[in-house]
């Protein structure tokens, strides 16, 4: 089997149905045995503007967006003008000459002029189905079996009735027939119709993984790109017994999550950076009263409102420092949707075992903004609720909820348990949860207790670090260049490394999924082995490099950074590595639209 892959882009105005067209095509490819990775060029509007959908598919595990565009469907003028320059040699662009004026078309790119609107109007009063015609045409260029078209359209539109399904299928087949006649494919895929692959984005994967981990309480206030988590929970609430609270704001969402966790549920809330900023006081509360919660930030480009539908890894510093004074927190940044699903059991276990808030960091690129294939979902991660008591002896007025122990974790009891009464307190407190801040404050015993309590809480980090995963090393052990990344930036790196290996370049990568706390001495040892380190991330200040420097003293000076809102492309990583090999060392910043 030889490696084969292809890139496809669909562009139109918002409201033209480009999202669902992209999904149909992604589904068609997945049902034909392809691995997929997609990106949604959204704008923060409901109608008009310009949106596009990019698909990379192949018979190998694609992780990123591939290189350039092989086949393009342009439904309006901006789509044509914006993307025509990125089409690869041997590629093709489909458009309707009635709606798009083609300027000069680069040599080596085939224009395919189809009456998309005219065909669409045969099947509906409105020309909406022109994207379906386009999908049919693309399917022909790809060489997908025409039988697949009917099946996938049935899946997508089945709920809308027979007439709609039939109209769409016929529109697509007409597009298929015309395109097949007018173009001889330059690139082909290897299909295996017996292999039906699943795909999803990390938001849905996170929601499903959380529910499988026993999460029965979810609270949120809508915010892109975290909203799909809320939608997933709401859609499945009834079937899976999930209590979903659409809270009045993110403060309430976080506080209700803490209330539910305190009462015994596995509870979670999610938002994006702005909402997380509102949650900050309550995050400290969870750590202070040792209530286990999982909280999610699906990052988008900031600062402030920033670019609501664009991607970034700019919130790491916020997660490291948010809320007053020092307290234990755990930060995990899964790299793709599959890893996100498989992380959630662990996230809840760490939260409950160590009675701390666990932060899961995703970003638009792998969250709401991009699908990827999920092959290996682990439903079996054992559930570990830690020191959770179901019975308490009658030992006095109050229960020692914050008992000092060797591992710094105290036995936990849930309201409703006889003899277990205690106060979960945000004031500094003694082992029963009683105030050290009021009438005791400053007295010798209270001062000593305060120090013990700080040590107890912060001491958990040492124990947690032992359980956290070290970064994964991908590629050969012996390499001239080592790329350092966290979360989603590992994806373009993986594709870039394939190209570099093919050209004989010795490159590997160190990819962080678990970010904090870690066994930093071991991390330092891994990094010191590298001959030359390049830090790759999507923010202005190289926040991960900053964390690494803080914890290990290793300063990675060579960097590839983007804060454009657009995801990194493999080609840019390739270029950076080659420049470094040519001794062009320093910080590189990218600013190209995808």
């Amino acid at each position: 089997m030889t490696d084969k892959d292809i890139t496809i882009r669909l562009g139109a105005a918002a409201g033209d149905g480009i999202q669902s067209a992209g999904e149909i095509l992604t589904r068609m490819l997945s049902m034909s045995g392809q691995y997929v990775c997609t990106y949604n060029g959204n704008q923060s509007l409901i109608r008009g503007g310009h949106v596009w959908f990019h698909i990379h598919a192949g018979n190998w595990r694609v992780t990123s967006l591939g290189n350039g565009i092989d086949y393009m469907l342009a439904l309006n003028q901006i789509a044509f003008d914006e993307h025509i320059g990125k089409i690869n040699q041997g590629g093709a662009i489909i458009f309707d000459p009635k709606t798009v004026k083609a300027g000069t078309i680069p040599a080596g790119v085939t224009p395919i002029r189809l009456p998309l609107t005219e065909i669409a109007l045969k099947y509906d009063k409105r020309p909406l189905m022109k994207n379906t015609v386009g999908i049919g045409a693309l399917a022909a260029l790809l060489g997908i079996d025409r039988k697949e078209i009917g099946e996938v359209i049935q899946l997508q539109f089945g709920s809308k009735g027979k007439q709609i399904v039939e109209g769409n299928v016929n529109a697509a087949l007409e597009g298929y027939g015309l395109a097949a006649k007018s173009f001889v494919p330059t690139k082909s895929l290897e299909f295996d119709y017996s292999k039906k692959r699943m795909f999803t984005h990390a938001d849905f994967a996170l929601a499903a993984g959380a529910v499988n981990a026993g999460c029965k309480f979810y609270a949120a206030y809508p915010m892109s790109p975290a909203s799909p988590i809320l939608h997933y929970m709401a859609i499945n609430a009834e079937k899976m017994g999930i209590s979903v609270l659409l809270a009045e704001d993110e403060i309430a969402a976080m506080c209700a999550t803490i209330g539910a966790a305190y009462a015994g549920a596995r509870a979670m809330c999610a938002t994006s950076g702005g909402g997380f900023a509102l949650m900050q006081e309550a995050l400290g509360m969870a750590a202070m009263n040792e209530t286990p919660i999982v909280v999610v930030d699906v990052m988008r480009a900031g600062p402030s409102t920033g670019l609501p539908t664009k991607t970034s890894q700019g919130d790491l510093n916020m997660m490291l420092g948010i809320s007053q004074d020092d307290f234990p927190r755990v930060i995990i940044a899964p790299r793709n949707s599959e890893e996100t699903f498989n992380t959630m059991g662990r996230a809840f276990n760490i939260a409950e075992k160590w009675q701390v808030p666990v932060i899961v960091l995703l970003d638009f690129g792998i969250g709401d903004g991009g699908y990827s294939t999920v092959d290996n979902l682990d439903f079996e991660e054992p559930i570990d609720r830690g020191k959770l008591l179901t019975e308490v002896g009658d030992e006095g007025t109050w229960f020692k909820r914050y008992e000092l122990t060797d591992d710094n974790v105290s036995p936990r009891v849930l309201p409703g348990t006889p003899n277990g009464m205690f106060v979960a307190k945000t004031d500094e407190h003694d082992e029963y949860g009683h105030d050290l801040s009021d009438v005791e404050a400053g007295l010798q015993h209270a001062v000593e207790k305060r120090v013990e309590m700080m040590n107890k809480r912060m001491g958990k980090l040492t124990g947690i670090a032992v359980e956290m995963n070290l970064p994964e090393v991908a590629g050969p052990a012996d390499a001239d260049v080592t790329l350092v990344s966290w979360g989603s930036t590992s994806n373009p790196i993986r594709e870039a490394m394939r190209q570099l290996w093919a050209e004989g370049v010795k490159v590997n990568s160190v990819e962080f999924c678990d970010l904090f706390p870690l066994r930093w001495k071991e991390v330092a040892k891994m990094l010191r082995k590298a001959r030359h380190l390049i830090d790759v991330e999507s923010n202005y200040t190289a926040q991960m490099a900053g964390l690494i420097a803080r914890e290990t003293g290793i300063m990675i000076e060579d960097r590839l950074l983007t804060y454009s809102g657009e995801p990194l492309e493999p080609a840019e990583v390739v270029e950076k590595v080659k420049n470094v090999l040519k001794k062009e060392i320093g910080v590189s910043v990218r600013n190209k639209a995808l």
Partner: protein
Amino acid sequence: MLETKLYESDIRPDWCPGCGDFGALSAVKNALASLEIEPHNVLISSGIGCASNFPGFIRTYGHHGLHGRPLPVAVGAKLANPSLTVLAIAGDGDEYGIGFNHVVHTARRNHDVKLLVLNNEVYGLTTGQLSPTSVFGQRTKTTPYGSSIYPLNPLSTLLGVGATFVARGFSGQVKQLSELIQAAIKHRGFSIVDILSPCVTWNDIYDNVRSRMYSLDTVSHDRTNLHAALDRSKETEKIPLGIFFQNEDSPSFDELLHKTVNNRFPVNEVKHMTEEEKKVAISIFS
């Protein structure tokens, strides 16, 4: 009736001698004992302030959280474990100031949690600044020449947003207050009891309240009539005490949720998906 000593804590309240909050504490203990709700089945969620120091002075489960946020914590806890009796207790600054958004929406959604506001018309713990319920002309550190702001009327506002149980009590009348709290606990859904609870240090309103108060039980007040309730809540000369409004026709949020998702007691329910649920969970992945 259970013995009130079941709720006795070994922590002495740190309130100033004579503070109205002592009366509220006695009334809450008496109400729980009268309704025979055992201490371990009660959760008191509070905020920050003198009033919010409440948990710990009474032996129940407690959550002494953040300024303004006792209600969302209470809402989450009640959803997770519907068999708990969940009270939120805090001051007027906490509930009518920084956390008022939560009061409005918790009332509107009719969550089955009971809000007791110990209203001393001042920010007590932070040394007596103007609160949302401070009266026009009141002199405080922040209004040295007298306040030029009209106070919030919490009762008429909450009647306006659709609260299903609205009452006012006085911490100087422990027995009557206990009865109001019992009615609030028994109510189907959200209830608010605004409790006039004088701050002897920064705003001693005992005499003022005593001279103007009267019980709604002594007049023919129809508590099922929203307009009558609004009229009473708007009185300024006199201070009506008692239940202004109660409507048990609409189900609570928790009841509705229980019907649709059958939210179950959490402890036994933390487990992996069933095979059936797995299929549903990933149906969206293809």
